[in-house]
């Protein structure tokens, strides 16, 4: 059986409520995402604006093909979004270890050749905030994962979450505000 039908089958099982299917699907996807990412890097080391959402979509084209029903596509992207988040977090953790706790100053960087280092730190903070949001407002947290990590459109996210696109937009708005508040430490009366 080809990889494409294999992935599609797992996807269907997961959509139909089989949680174990997700456990099988994730490693396949994780490796594919990493492979695509490193492939892109190998091709173009500099000046390349690597987008996580593009990688997710490329994984989709490779693993499933383009000729699938629209709803399958949305569900695939949902899994891919979650996997992408995990991949980025793993990477940020590794980076942090490499730097012995990664206590980099979050100041404006002085030298020309030094931009955007503390990002991995911030991503971990964001991931943490997102996890906490999930306990408070699971759907809003999922919306962030789908839209920002996976690049799902509002409509696609709406299909996955079983709500309207307008609700997705509202979820995103409140989720982003919540996360930002948490990240800047300006917590209200939570």
């Amino acid at each position, binding site marked *: 059986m080809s990889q494409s039908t294999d992935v599609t089958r797992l996807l269907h099982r997961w959509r139909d409520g089989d949680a174990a299917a997700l456990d099988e699907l994730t490693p396949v996807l994780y490796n594919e995402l990493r492979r695509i990412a*490193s492939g*892109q*890097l190998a091709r*173009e080391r500099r*000046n*390349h*604006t*690597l*987008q*996580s959402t*593009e*990688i997710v*979509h*490329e994984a989709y*084209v*490779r693993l499933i093909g*383009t000729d699938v029903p*629209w709803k399958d596509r949305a569900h695939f992207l949902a899994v891919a979004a979650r996997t*992408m988040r995990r991949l*980025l977090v793993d*990477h*940020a953790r590794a*980076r942090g270890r490499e730097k*012995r706790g990664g*206590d*980099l*100053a979050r*100041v*404006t*960087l*002085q*030298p*020309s*050749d*030094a*931009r*955007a*280092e503390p*990002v991995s730190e*911030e*991503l971990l903070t964001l991931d943490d905030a997102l996890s906490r949001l999930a306990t*408070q*407002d699971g759907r809003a947290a999922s919306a962030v994962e789908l839209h*920002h*990590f996976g*690049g799902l*459109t509002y409509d696609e996210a709406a299909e996955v979450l079983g709500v309207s696109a307008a609700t997705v937009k*509202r979820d995103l*708005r*409140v989720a*982003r*505000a919540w*996360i*930002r508040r948490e990240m*800047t430490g*300006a*917590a*209200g*009366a*939570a």
Partner: protein
Amino acid sequence: MQPDRWRRAREIFDRVSDLEPEARAAALEELAGGDDELRREVESLLVASGEAETDIPRLIGAAARSALATNDGGTVMPGATVGPYRLINLLGRGGMGSVYLAERADGAFSHRVALKVLRSGLSDTGMEARFRSERQILADLRHPNIARLIDGGTTDDGAPYLVLEYVEGRPIDRWCDEQRLTVEQRLDLFREVCAAVQSAHRNLVVHRDLKPANILVTADGHPKLLDFGIAKLLGPTTHDHTMAITGTLDRLLTPAFASPEQVVGKPVTTASDVYSLGVILYELLAGSTPHVFANPSATEVERVICRDVPDRPSLTVRRSAGTPAGAETARLRRSTPDRLVRRLSGDLDTIVMTALRKEPDRRYPSVEGLSEDVRRYLTALPISARPDTLAYRARKFVSRHRGSVVTSAVGVAAVMVFGVQSAVNARIATVERDRARAAEERARVEAHTSEKVSSFLVDLFRVADPSESRGADVTARELLDRGAAQLDAGLADEPATRARLLKTVGEVYTNLGEYDEAAELLAESVGVLRSEDPSSPELPATLNELAKVRFDLGDIETADRLSREALAAARRSFQGDHRQTAMALNNLGWLAFEETRLADAERYHREALAMRTRLHGDEHDEVAESLFNLGTVALELERLDEAAELHGRGYEMRRRVLGDDHPLTLSSVGTVAATYEAQKRVAEALELIDGAMPTAIRVFGPDHPDVAYLEVMRGRQFRFLGRTDDAVASFREAARIERLSRGPDHPYVGYAEIQLGTVLVTAGRLDEAETAYREALRIYRAAYPEGDRNVANVLGKLAKLEIERGDGRTALDYARESRELFSRQLPEGHSELLEGDIIIGFALAEAGRTADARSMFESVLPRMEAIGHGDGPQARRVREALAALLGTS
């Protein structure tokens, strides 16, 4: 927070956020007034909300880039000491090494400093001595706007380090945007930068690496220049020629800001800083650097910086005026795109372009001169710089083409050089091949003809000096039309020159996509040669060119006849291998391909490739062409890996031999992308197209068929990536261009409309999709013979659309006609016919004719199994539909 409390907070947040900012406080008071905890919760969310809209996406994007990008850098850990300094923390890493925030370990000063540990070691004692003496010179440099070099030395590991004044600030480009400085404010700030650079120049120190990241603006709004002279300190020798070596260039220079003399390793002077300041001013005004490098290989950087004249700042702004990025650029300058274009046009364009001239001695003689012109502009005085005249540019490109350098200049010149260059190449090849046959006389005629051609073109440019045409750009097209008109009348007594010029101008029309005009001129040239000089070596070349144009006009029959005549003429005129013989073979290969005689096509192209390799060696644009054409045949034969290999080789060869902005290189981009697409390398395909598109538009003009093809290919990749809106925009643009350049009834318009329709269906925008499909249907019905497969194909698509829409009866009409047309062309049992039946089945189901649908599906399934499609996604869908029908009946 308790779940019900959170639900309440969210509800209020959602409602208040929907209101205008002014109305929010009152609404919040009303909704949560009595409950302090609730109100604070919502309030804090509202405060965070504004920035969160952009912050969170940006952070995730940056995290992805940073996490997925490789990283390497210095080895010193914070907490360690370097010389008398203790490192507090790492500020950043980069090509040069790592930079730390540090302080004196012995407490002698409380100052914090930036300590830069350089990655490159000092390989010998001579270098170390030089490092020390240069350091001393820099340490003496005192200016309030220049960050001081305080100290330096080597670490225990032998790595050199520098201690610099620590500056907290924002890079000048970001500062200007964040503060939304107006053009005037930016110019004032820029002059402060100039003053600091001037002061260093008076002390005979050249910066060598001026760029926004090296110019920080501190909180009080004044600039501070970093890393003065550091680039030289790090240069491996006292001369800079090693700068140009790959790797060294990468690490030490930022290509976008480096001057031509720097990238080729000529001496660096104060004029190099003038150039870099010009780039910075360009970016501060126009929002982007003059040259953007998609793929900054050392050779590309050198070629672009040394040869390509960038667009004027005002033109750059105008080009982006309709885009969100363009609007943002203007907004950040408290302006609108239109106002910004007007503001930059004229003096500011001239000032920037003067600073950016390729030749150091044609720039401002000093930073002071540049700064003074900016001041004069600000006070509405006439500036000292004068724009380049077109006549000057014409002289330049003619002198360049005499040197036989394949090159291109801006606008008109790019197009004309291409035409002239072909003629020159043809001449060189001809002279070489014919030497043995005592062609001295011929060569004299050639020389005379070439001289005439050159002076004709130069005259053309003189006439077109913008000072005579109110400063408006003279388009290449106007220039050509003028040239064609002159040819029409003149040169009757010099048939050789006339034939050559007709051919040259004809070729330029071809490159502009004006095929009708091109065909007319080339046919006339062929006519002159046939009657005046049938044995002329020019005849095969001109026939080949005309055949290509006829081919482009869709006139396959004439193209075939002309190509055969060209092959015969070439074999008659030249013995053995010859460039024009290979060209004729190549064209015949194309024609065979077009008529799907693929085996013939492959044979012709292989013969052409072999001959071209014998003639020109392994690196030549025509060898690249043959590789390409063979690749296209392989693609058609679905030998994908072979196709990708051949296309990849051909494309890279074109880039090396012709350059990235050569029309042929650009034309091949779409084909390479198609191969990538076939291999499902969608992101690569898109990246390739995006990289080439701006150049293609610049070189071809926005309405050229080649640009349309790139747009179609881009749209397809967008579609595969699920970027529906982008795909729609691309296909619409492609259809627009095809309509304009090929006429409203050309099949290529239909093709673009079908692509558009397909993506619109995916997006559920069925009405728009229907319009697109119907337009394609109209065009195809008129363009193709009765019952053609292309027509059947569109009908099938319309049927599927109606099924999607739920109109089973209309769907059924389309589906039946489609199936009928297919059945006239294809044998019974063909998968296309099966597909037709499946569509009919779905249409029946949608029309409520359950029993008919059921029996159709039941008849289809065994046939699918018979051809091995029994397990595919399509069969699955049929089974599901069948099951559903059985369930309801």
